């Protein structure tokens, strides 16, 4: 019975408190299945009522409700009033919870719809942003193009301005020229008008005429002729003759020139044939069979041509001329190919094994060296030249240094000194010896002068002695003649001795 009442009450409450917005919340968080608990009778049965009651009271206590039991001397009896109150409290709670839930659901819906809106607007704004960015790029691009255009237009404008300036200058110069001419013509016109006036008013008209003593003959001596139709035609014919003569002369000159040029061409052709044929005929590699035939043919045709040419050398017909120029072109092309071949052969010789050399060896001129060897040689020579140049350069530099005056004066002095040092030393030594010799000379001179003075004194004394002795002798001459002889001898000996004595000091000198 209580269950059915429970059910009824629950039904009522559930149906009355069913929020109208439930229909919207299908996709959101599943709500508590309030309905499902209705009619769920498995919790309490007839057997476990006391446990159920206990459980329920515990739960209620936990939730804060007073206990639904009141204790009657150890038996827990169900307090219906408090149980009903608790139930009522629970129902209130439930209602509140449901209300809050509904609010929360509404809130949630609102929020979700806001979010949805925001997302939509966000995506819209993103799209708009993309669009505007693209627009911006486009506009930037357009701006760049327009700038380029303006630059080009500026350039054109500048050119046009320059041209306009030039044309204006031209116009200005032409205008000044025209003005000048116009002024000249007007001046002349003015003069003409004046003259005309003068002539009209002037009565005496000065007659025009020639007054000559006698007529002279023509310069070529002939008589002048009447003007008739014959003279006219003669003049015409003379004129045409002059023109024709000129044309003939011109044509002759051109013919001579033409003949000379043809001769030159023939010579060139023959020389080319000469150059090409011996090379070709010496054995060559696989390619050369055809050209060999070709050259033989060509030579044959050339000979034919020459023969035919000798016959037609006087006539300058188109055909012969074309043939000649064509054959020369062909020969020239062959010569070019041949030169190219030679170049290649030069490379081949270096690279390929002697197998080809056997073929080539006979054909190729001994003087021809391969390209590589030639290049190496060139390189070596160049290097040598460079080295020599460097050497010369350094030598020149050194020479320059030697000859030029150095910047530092001290070093200059030192340098000059060390060159002069040797000389100085030598000079010093020489000076020394010279000084010594001088001293010696001085000494010897002094001794010599002293000796001379002494000698002078001695001579004086000797002369005095001699004088006294002679006086003495003279005074003693009366005594003995014999004594005279002796004394004369001794005197002469003494004189000789004196002489010797006088002359002796001279000898050391």
């Amino acid at each position: 019975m209580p269950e059915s009442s429970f059910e009824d009450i629950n039904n009522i409450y559930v149906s009355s408190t069913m929020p109208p917005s439930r229909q919207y919340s299908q996709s959101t968080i599943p709500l508590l299945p309030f309905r499902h608990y209705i009619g769920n009778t498995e919790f309490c049965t007839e057997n476990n009522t006391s446990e159920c009651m206990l459980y329920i009271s515990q739960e209620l206590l936990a939730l804060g409700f007073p206990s639904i039991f009141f204790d009657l001397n150890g038996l827990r009896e169900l307090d219906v009033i408090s149980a009903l109150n608790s139930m009522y409290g629970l129902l209130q709670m439930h209602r509140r919870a449901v209300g809050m839930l509904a609010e929360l659901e509404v809130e949630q819906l609102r929020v979700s719809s806001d979010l949805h809106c925001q997302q939509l607007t966000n995506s819209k704004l993103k799209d708009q942003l993309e669009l505007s960015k693209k627009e911006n790029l486009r506009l930037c691009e357009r701006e760049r193009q327009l700038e380029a255009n303006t630059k080009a237009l500026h350039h054109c404008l500048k050119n046009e301005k320059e041209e306009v300036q030039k044309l204006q200058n031209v116009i200005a110069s032409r205008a000044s020229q025209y003005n000048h001419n116009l002024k000249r013509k007007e001046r002349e016109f003015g003069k003409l008008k004046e003259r005309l006036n003068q002539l009209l008013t002037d009565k005496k008209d000065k007659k025009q005429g020639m007054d000559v003593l006698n007529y002279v003959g023509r310069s070529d001596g002939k008589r002048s002729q009447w003007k008739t139709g014959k003279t006219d035609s003669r003049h015409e014919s003379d004129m045409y003759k002059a023109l024709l003569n000129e044309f003939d002369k011109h044509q002759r000159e051109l013919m001579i020139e033409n003949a000379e040029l043809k001769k030159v061409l023939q010579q060139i052709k023959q020389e080319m044939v000469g150059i090409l044929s011996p090379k070709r005929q010496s054995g060559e590699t696989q390619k050369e069979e055809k050209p060999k035939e070709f050259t033989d043919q060509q030579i044959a045709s050339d000979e034919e041509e020459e023969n035919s040419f000798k016959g037609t050398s006087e006539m300058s017909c188109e055909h012969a001329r074309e043939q000649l120029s064509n054959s020369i072109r062909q020969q020239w092309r062959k010569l070019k190919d041949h030169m190219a071949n030679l170049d290649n052969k030069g490379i081949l010789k270096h690279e390929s094994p002697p197998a080809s050399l056997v073929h080539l060896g006979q054909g190729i001129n001994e003087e021809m060296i391969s390209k590589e060897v030639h290049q190496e040689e060139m390189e070596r020579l160049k290097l040598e030249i460079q080295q020599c140049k460097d050497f010369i350069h350094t030598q020149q530099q050194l020479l320059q240094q030697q000859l030029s005056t150095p910047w530092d004066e001290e070093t200059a002095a030192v340098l000059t000194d060390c060159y002069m040092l040797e000389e100085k030393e030598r000079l010093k030594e020489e000076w020394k010896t010279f000084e010594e010799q001088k001293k010696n000379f001085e000494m010897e001179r002094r001794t010599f002068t002293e000796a001379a003075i002494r000698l002078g004194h001695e001579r004086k004394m000797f002369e005095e002695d001699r004088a006294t002795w002679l006086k003495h002798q003279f005074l003693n001459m009366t005594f003995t003649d014999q004594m005279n002889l002796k004394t004369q001898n001794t005197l002469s000996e003494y004189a000789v001795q004196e002489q010797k004595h006088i002359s002796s000091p001279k000898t050391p000198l």
Partner: protein
Amino acid sequence: MNFSEVFKQSNQLCKVSPDGKYLATCVQYRLVVRDVNTLQILQLYTCLDQVASMEWSSDSLFILCAMYKRGLVQVWSLEQPDWHCKIDEGSIGLVSSRWSPDGRHILNTTEFHLRVTVWSLCNKSVSYIKYPKACQKGMDFSADGRYMALAERRDCKDYISVFVCDDWHLLRHFETDTQDLAGVEWSPNGCVLAAWDSCLEYKMLLYSLDGRLLSTYSAYEWSLGIKSVAWSPSSQFLAIGSYDEKVRILNHITWKKLTEFEHHPTITNSKAVASHRCLVSDEIPPLPVQVPVVKPDPDRANPKIGISAIAFSVDNRYLATKNDCMPQSVWVWDMQRLGPTAVLEQTAPVRFFAWDPRRPRLALCTGNTKLYLWSPAGCVSVKVPVEGKRQHLAYS
């Protein structure tokens, strides 16, 4: 070089006779004829008025003296001093007077270029040629003296008349395709006639002797055109000097431009320079050489720019040109190499230059007392003992 003593002459009228035997000078109204070797006075004639122009006849027998103010021409004979001839143009006036190539006719151009009167000394005939054109070079005789080309203008159109000098018979008369014909010149072989337009249009027309148009040449449009023209003595080349400072050479086979010579103010070609800056020594200045340029006044008519004088040497080998922008320099070009061979720079503007009629030697004068000679071998300057300035040269 020897110089004779100085003779007085007025108006630069001093000419040697074509046969080289006599020298005629005009002093005021007197005509003095001397022997070239001894310089003795052989004849003395007196004219009626101051002589404006004097010319020898081609056979050296007669001398023509023209007095433009009076409209008179007097002719004197060397063989017969008593012979006299006086041509009076009357009220019609006289602007120029010249001999015909046979030496027996005198062509007088009347004032305002009304007509050309041909007076004959052989008979009483007088010929009149109407409407001659007043231009740079309206009348030219062929080298052999047989034909005369005359530029005419009628009804605002240009014509050329070719006359036979024998009897002044009109051979050909044709219209030219020019705006304003400025000049005509025969080629030395007498078969081609060059006619050119005024400087406002660059146009060179080449006519055959019988009046056919052979070719037309125009280098450029709108800017000022042809200033000077010269044929080479062999008739192979026609040199055209224009206001753009270039000389263009046409060849006689195709009448197309062979080459053009540009007068560049900076010279870098080492073979080309000879300088007369120093009076005594000829310095070779270091390359590149700057040729002094004078900028012309752009507002004036006939501006001093462009090639005003061209002359070929006798052997056909050299061409001398003068650019008015560089008035102190004369350029010599080698026709075999088709390039410049020398640039002769003087200290003063060059007044005149002329080639020796026998060898490739160029003489030029600058208005001072020196005469400068150039030949491929070298340069020489000769001092001429005269007072006053030298303006004109003539080789005999």
